[in-house]
Structure formats: structure tokens, C-alpha cells
């Protein structure tokens, strides 16, 4: 896998791609780095102005370069998600998590003892459970 550099300067192995609309990926990875210093585990991918074929090509190239087997995307219907589904078609050693949020990625970057694909599945559950609703109905509810 490729090496990135953490906020503290240590070499960090890239473990996943984060892709989405606008600056979603870089923003989310930046937030992970601010909170944990582990943002270098994540490769942000933005796709402004690209057609579907070029989005697929870009994400595929990042996967090949880095050797990662995990893709996080922002939206179930998004172009990056569509591209990732095409890339992962028939692949049983890689995983796509669509609808990623910050709690998902925070859990993922701390799960270094797990294989990235397993860590991704685990983090998806944590991210789902981390959505809460608080307000007029009283109390705090998990969405």
C-alpha cells in the first residue's frame, strides 16, 4: 500500500479511499485528521466535471496506486458510488460503504488491528448507530 504522512509526521499506510460530491472527501478527511491525526489513512477523491467513465477510471487508478480495498462514498445515488459498484463488480476482497459519515471514519482509522475490509464493515455499523436526534420530542434518540 502507499504511504501517507500523519499530522505528527509519522509514515502512515493508506487503508481506504473516500470519494464524493464537491469537497466532501477532503473535508471529511481533514476533520478526521484534526480529531485523530490519522487522516493519512484515507485518500480523498474529488470528481468535479468528470463523466461517469472518468470517475470510474480515477477511483480505479487510486485503488491500484495505493493497493487499498475499501471505498467510502457519500451518497447511495452518487456518481462515485455508481463508479465504485462497477469497480467492485465481482470482487470479493474489497468493500464499498455508501453514506459514510464522520463517526464511521473515526471508528475506521482506530481499527488498525483489523483488516481494512473488516474494519470498514465494523465502522459502518458504528457510523449508523452514531446518528442521534435530539429536540422537541424530548430526550435523545438514535436514528
Amino acid at each position, binding site marked *: 500500500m502507499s504511504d501517507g504522512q500523519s499530522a505528527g509526521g509519522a509514515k502512515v499506510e493508506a487503508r481506504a479511499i473516500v470519494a464524493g*460530491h464537491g469537497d466532501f472527501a477532503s473535508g471529511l478527511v481533514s476533520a478526521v485528521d484534526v480529531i485523530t491525526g490519522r487522516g493519512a489513512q484515507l485518500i480523498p477523491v474529488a470528481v*468535479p*466535471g*468528470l*463523466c*461517469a467513465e*472518468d470517475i470510474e477510471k480515477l477511483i480505479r487508478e487510486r485503488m491500484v496506486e495505493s493497493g487499498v480495498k475499501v471505498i467510502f462514498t457519500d*451518497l*447511495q*445515488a*452518487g*456518481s462515485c*458510488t*455508481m463508479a465504485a*459498484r*462497477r469497480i467492485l*463488480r465481482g470482487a470479493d476482497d474489497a468493500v464499498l460503504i455508501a453514506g459514510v459519515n464522520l463517526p464511521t471514519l473515526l471508528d475506521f482509522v482506530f481499527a488498525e488491528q483489523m483488516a481494512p475490509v473488516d474494519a470498514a464493515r465494523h465502522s459502518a455499523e458504528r457510523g449508523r448507530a452514531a446518528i442521534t436526534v435530539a429536540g422537541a420530542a424530548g430526550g435523545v434518540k438514535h436514528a
Partner: protein
Amino acid sequence: MTLVLNRIDDRLIHGQVVVGWGQPLDVRFILLVDDGVAASEWEQELYRMGAPPEMDVYFLNVSAAIDELPRYRADSRHGILLTGDIGTMRRLVEEAGISTINLGGIHHRAGRTQRLRYVFLNEDEETALRELAARGVAITAQDVPGARPIPLDDILSGVAR
């Protein structure tokens, strides 16, 4: 007529279509016209997964769409007609009476020139759009509902860049 948008978008079903347009227009079905997708169950499943459960997606090749468009126009629900390229929409204009076109996303490809952030066209595509406009088709570019619709003349003249 309940087709509320006739859109050319090479990404086909994606966030702008499903969420950006779909929610404010209360869209309940997408009519995706593409010969390649209509011939592939795997492609259809891929795009169906991108739509929310309350939104139906129908896949037709161009010939079938020409025959069946009246039925979808008579549907009481709001729908989006979606093609991935200008040539497909052109056939629907010529043979099924489409009178308005939304250019939603025609992205960079070799031989194309950038006209807007999300519209790139080659000479043949520009000619095709001019010919459609000359037939009276109203053509504007607008990626999302909150954006200003940009008339074809402004796109091709470079005023809109």
C-alpha cells in the same frame, strides 16, 4: 403531461437527478432511455440501487421509448425523462415530440470543448443542438433547480462561461 423534466445527463441516475431535482419536483419515476442500459440487467440493477424506494425506474431502449412515451406522459405521477447523450434525446424529439431539453451534465471527453462547468460539446453535438433549437425545441442548461437556466445561445456563444 407529467414528465416534468427532459434531461440529458451522461451520469444518468445520480445525486443531482434523484435528490436535487427529484425531491423539489416530487418525482416518483424516472424513465431512463438508453439502448445499452436497456440491454443489460446488471446495469439496470446498478441504477435501480441508486434510486430511493419511493421512486420507480423504467428502462427503455429508444425504439420502445418512442412507442411508449404517450403512456408515461399520461401517468398521474411526476416523472423525469433521462438520456445519457444528445443523439438519444434528438431521436425522442424527432419521433416522440419532446419540446424542451435540460442539459444537465455532458462532461469532458476527447474532442469536446468546455462550454459550462458541466457542459462540454464537440462540433457535431453543437450542430445537433442548434438544429433542435431551430425546430423550436427550448434548450437550456441547468444542473440543479436552484441554478439559473442558461439558454442555448448563451452557452454556444460563450457568454455564459
